[in-house]
């Protein structure tokens, strides 16, 4: 069964997703447990895939046994095996922690449909990660967008408008991607990535290829919320149900970032992306502006979810910057940042979900003294915030470190300054919250009374931690941040070093 693992990751979720509404008709509560089981087995399949890749090298899985370039194949190499396990681990943990929150935020009658869409979204993200076919990628991209539109629209007031904006921009992005695929198909007659990368170098000077490349950059850029194309992202993250913000913030943009890597490095080779068209120069500027813009906008926010959304825009900038540095350290830093940011942003959103579930607080000013009410949750928040800022033992430090090394190696001193400045800005907006959590007294929203005055002894606040089903995933995510940080050399040695093209310093 081991060699079937790549297909099982998708098939389990796909088949279960359509039983969930049927069982949901009989008993609504069953929808959640069926979904959870499916996610668990899919995670096991993803782990088996990763194990196979690490021990025996890249896997080529032919759908229906048809050989490429005619058939669709799944290609799992070192980069996407890691991303696959990352996506499936984070969505499994999100599923565990989301139960209570979904039960409160979503109407009972919609639970089966919610979980069905949820499974389809995770399925499509995993499909995007695994596939080695450009058109198949488009199909998964569309499935992920369509399910995300539906899930975001299930949120609070304002979610419909946010989702509608995302529909418009997401459709533009997907059409651009499809146009790019069409141009490549006209020029080469192939849709298989490996095949394309063999055919393309002979026609790199063709204008069709330039246009296709531009369409890809803009289309995928829209999907990942790259700086000037990010307009849908803050609203969508803010108004979506908490569980969905928690799912899409760490996974969806990261998968798009992975696709970005794949298109720039595999489909087109680095010679084209960096020398034939000066895409790297342009992307460096865009990434740098995006990093600073996201950080400054995050400082200006009052709503915690919105703040995290803007922070995501800034972090996407780091990943793109890693690609655009066009050297060994930059690429490794960018790829590692996919992992570190996924864990950090995932646990931040998970903490916010727990806080909203337990207290209903969303305004940053209301976080005062929350550490005495929810000590473990806030510790995890702190750790994730440290990772976002880049404090040493956490994952964020190492990915930023490699990025800084990349800027130094490429002698882009102004980019070094941008990364350092952005880290300072991150520190500003995260320590603002941490200061409120740990060094202000707790204000009980229910009674309205202030919990003690300065210089007086702080009143005892009863510990009211998040339910265990939320707390355990939060702590596991926080452990993930530390694990990615402490084992970063192993991750790079076993997975990420292989993405660097041959002959690159």
């Amino acid at each position, binding site marked *: 069964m081991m060699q*079937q693992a790549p*297909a099982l990751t998708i098939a389990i979720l796909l088949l279960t997703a*359509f039983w969930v509404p049927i069982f949901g*008709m*009989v008993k609504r509560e069953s929808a959640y447990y069926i979904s959870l089981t499916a996610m668990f087995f899919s995670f096991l399949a993803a782990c088996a895939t990763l194990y196979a890749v690490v021990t025996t090298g890249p896997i080529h*899985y032919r759908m229906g046994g048809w050989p490429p370039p005619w058939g669709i194949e799944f290609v799992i190499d070192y980069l996407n095996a890691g991303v696959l396990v990352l996506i499936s681990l984070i969505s499994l943990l999100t599923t565990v922690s989301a139960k209570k929150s979904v039960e409160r935020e979503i109407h009972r*009658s919609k639970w089966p449909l919610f979980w069905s869409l949820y499974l389809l979204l995770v399925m499509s993200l995993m499909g995007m990660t695994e596939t080695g076919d450009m058109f198949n990628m488009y199909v998964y991209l569309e499935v992920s967008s369509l399910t995300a539109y539906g899930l975001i629209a299930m949120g609070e007031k304002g979610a419909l408008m946010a989702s509608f904006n995302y529909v418009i921009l997401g459709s533009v992005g997907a059409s651009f991607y499809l146009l790019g695929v069409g141009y490549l198909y006209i020029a080469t007659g192939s849709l298989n990535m490996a095949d394309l990368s063999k055919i393309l170098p002979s026609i790199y000077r063709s204008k069709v290829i330039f246009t296709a490349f531009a369409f890809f950059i803009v289309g995928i850029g829209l999907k990942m919320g790259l700086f000037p194309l990010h307009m849908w992202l803050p609203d969508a993250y803010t108004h979506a149900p908490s569980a969905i913000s928690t799912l899409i913030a760490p996974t969806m943009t990261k998968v798009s970032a992975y696709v970005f890597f794949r298109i720039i490095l595999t489909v087109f080779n680095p010679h084209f992306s960096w020398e034939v068209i000066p895409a790297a120069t342009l992307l460096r500027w865009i990434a740098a502006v995006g990093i600073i813009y996201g950080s400054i906008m995050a400082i200006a926010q009052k709503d915690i979810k919105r703040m995290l959304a803007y922070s995501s825009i800034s972090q996407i900038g780091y990943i793109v910057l890693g690609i655009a540095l066009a050297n060994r350290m930059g690429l490794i830093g960018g790829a590692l940042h996919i992992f570190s940011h996924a864990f950090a942003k995932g646990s931040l959103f998970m903490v916010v979900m727990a806080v909203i579930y337990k207290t209903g607080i969303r305004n940053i000013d209301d976080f005062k003294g929350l550490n005495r009410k929810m000590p473990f949750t806030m510790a995890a928040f702190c750790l994730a915030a440290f990772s976002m800022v880049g404090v040493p033992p956490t994952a964020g430090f190492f990915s930023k470190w490699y990025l800084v090394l990349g800027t130094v190696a490429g002698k882009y001193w102004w980019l070094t300054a941008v990364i350092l400045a952005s880290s300072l800005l991150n520190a500003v907006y995260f320590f603002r919250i941490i200061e409120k959590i740990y060094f202000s007294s707790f204000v009980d929203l229910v009674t309205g009374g202030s919990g003690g005055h300065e210089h007086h002894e702080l009143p005892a606040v009863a510990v009211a931690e998040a339910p265990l089903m939320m707390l355990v995933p939060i702590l596991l995510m926080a452990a993930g941040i530390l694990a990615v940080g402490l084992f970063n050399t192993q991750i790079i040695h076993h997975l990420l070093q292989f993405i660097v093209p041959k002959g690159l310093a």
Partner: protein
Amino acid sequence: MINRYDNLIIEFFCRIIAAPLFLFGVYIIFHGEASPGGGFQGGVILGAGFIMLAIAYGMDFTLRRIREKMILFLSCIGVFIYGGIGAACLLWRGNFLDYGKLPLPVDSVSAIRGLGIMGIEIGVGLTVMGVMISIYYDLIDPGGIQPDMLSGEE
């Protein structure tokens, strides 16, 4: 909700055409693997048949024949047939969707593949039909999915 409006010509014409239309839809589905046509086209024709009845005879008439719950069930089960046939191939040591490995009582591998594709076309047809009708119901009824639609235990 659009009310019914009696019109003898439309009702008579729809009554005559309904049965051949459904038959034609099924024919298109089953010819999918060897000739132009297939699950999507056939499913659209089947869905259009129900939509035609809904236009001619009103929603109550159609809802009595195919309820929203049934539509949801058909849409889901259609995809499941597709994926299930694909996953069944794993049991006989084929890759996902490798129908040639299915142990069907036919002589050649190509005939087995044909039958596998036909099974998949049936699934596609059911789903497309369900989704077509569901879209029409949603357009007619601005409420969309009603809270009591999925009620099971109450």
